[in-house]
């Protein structure tokens, strides 16, 4: 019972062989230089990129297998993703950003906003709920992106350089916050970072990409 990815990932000309398994409750950190394909692995798991060959499955459900042409679209994988460039929706308030995924699952606006508000409180942003992403700081945006992914209670949580777009001062605060959020989390977590220091405190396993 786990997330299993074995095969070739890549976009365009780029490709690399990957073999990872992440158990429930495990936090796998992938570290390596820029351009080594770390982010591509996350995108492949999220369903934004496709495998070139091999197989990706979660809890024995096949998500992507080129040879059988099976491909589960991103919206049916229910991964929680924190993108490297965050990709908050610029026209929506912070709370609406967090509630967006919940509403997609069929929750009413009221319910979704209630749960989004709880999540924003967890990351300490409850007072800024009605601001737009353009009106808050980089560290705050980063926390919104985390809340947006976590609020879905996703079986798979994907974090792409969660500290990259944060200035040094708020970096430590975020580093302290993240373990508390992920603690007791039952899903599989894949964390990508180019900085080994980031992952030390969090990861249960570390995989180095050359």
């Amino acid at each position, binding site marked *: 019972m786990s997330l299993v990815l074995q095969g070739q990932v890549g976009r365009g000309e780029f490709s690399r062989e990957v073999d990872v398994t992440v158990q429930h409750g495990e936090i796998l950190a992938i570290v390596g230089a820029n351009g080594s394909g770390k982010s591509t692995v996350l995108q492949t798991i*999220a*369903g*934004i990129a496709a495998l070139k060959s091999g197989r990706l499955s979660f809890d024995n459900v096949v998500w992507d297998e080129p040879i059988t042409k099976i491909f589960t*679209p*991103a*919206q*049916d994988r*229910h*991964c*929680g*993703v924190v*993108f490297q*460039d965050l*990709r908050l*929706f*610029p*026209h*929506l308030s912070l709370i609406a950003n967090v509630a*967006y*995924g919940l*509403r*997609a*699952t069929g929750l009413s606006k009221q319910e979704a906003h209630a749960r989004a508000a709880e999540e924003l409180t967890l990351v300490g942003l409850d007072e800024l709920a009605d601001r737009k992403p353009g009106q808050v700081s980089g560290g705050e945006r980063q926390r919104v992106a985390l809340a*947006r992914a976590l609020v*879905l209670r996703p079986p798979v949580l994907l974090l792409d350089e969660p500290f990259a777009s944060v200035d040094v001062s708020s970096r430590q605060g975020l580093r302290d916050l993240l373990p508390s959020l992920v603690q007791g989390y039952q899903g599989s977590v894949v964390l990508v970072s180019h900085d080994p220091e980031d992952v030390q405190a969090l990861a249960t396993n570390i995989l180095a990409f050359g």
Partner: protein
Amino acid sequence: MSTSSIEATSIPQPQRPWRQAKRAWRQAIVMLVVSVVGATLLMQVTGLAGVIGSYVAFALVFPVVAFLASMKYGKKAGQDKMASAIICLAFGTAFMPWMSILFTVFNRGREAFYSGFLTTDMLVNSSDQPLNMGGLSHAIVGTLILIFIASMVAIPLGIITAIYIVEVKGRFASYARFFTQAMSGVPSIVAGLFIYTTIVVVVFNRFNALAGGLALAILMLPTVARTAEEVLKLVPDDLRAASYAMGASQFSTVFRIVLPTVRSGLVTASILGVARVAGETAPLLLTSQYFVQLTTNILDGPMASLPTYIFANLGAGSDTSVARAWGGSAVLMSIVFILFVTARLLGGRNTKSRH
């Protein structure tokens, strides 16, 4: 003299601006004087006359003078100077007629204006009565109604077509793109004929404003669709991917993420579409025609509009009716300009209209 060769070859050289500028000025003045003399001579020989004749003579002589003046730096420098002169002159020449149009429209249009010009119709006044009687309220209202009908059809359909091309990327997407482009070249009179044979003859058996609006919608559709397509393409794919990754369907991705982020661009697309058809005349002659009274019933009978008001008054031929036509032109032009400036202000630099 040396400034020109520096410009021409753009080789960086130590600059002494105060002296260069003086020399450049002197050279320009000499060239101008020589050109004017040359042009005068040319006018004597060819019989060119009047303001435009003098301009033409000057435009013919000046590039040659520019060529000769730079010849001493070589043939290439001479050609370069001449090309610059021709290009700048051609640019100026091209803008003259447009300036003439704008000036004439507003200058002659003033004549028809009086306190009631915008608020009365022509029901009790014939077009050759004095200019302080009657007006074009009926034409303004008619144009607004026609534009409204056209917008109701063309804006949703155009945006849906753009969504199909950019978001759905369906089987016919490339055809849809190509044919909306090709459709922008459909002659307006053909759109009028089509609506006449279908809506006017078959459905209502009478001329009416609904038919006019639909004819305009055909002409508006490609502009809206093409511009909206360009606007939708500006939305980064990353944003769509983020939405999908959060479990959202394509439906909610398009309506809750893509469309809201480009709202102002879509408004611009719509306004450009309206500006494109606000002055269309030919299709209206075949569908909503012209009527002297302010009417609001879109299903029964002809309805006035600004273009057909201009056309009808120009056709009537008397001095006062031609003045009314110019007055109508000034109003129509103002409306188109206001629409256009609004579109620019809303859409910013990113929105490019497509033909």
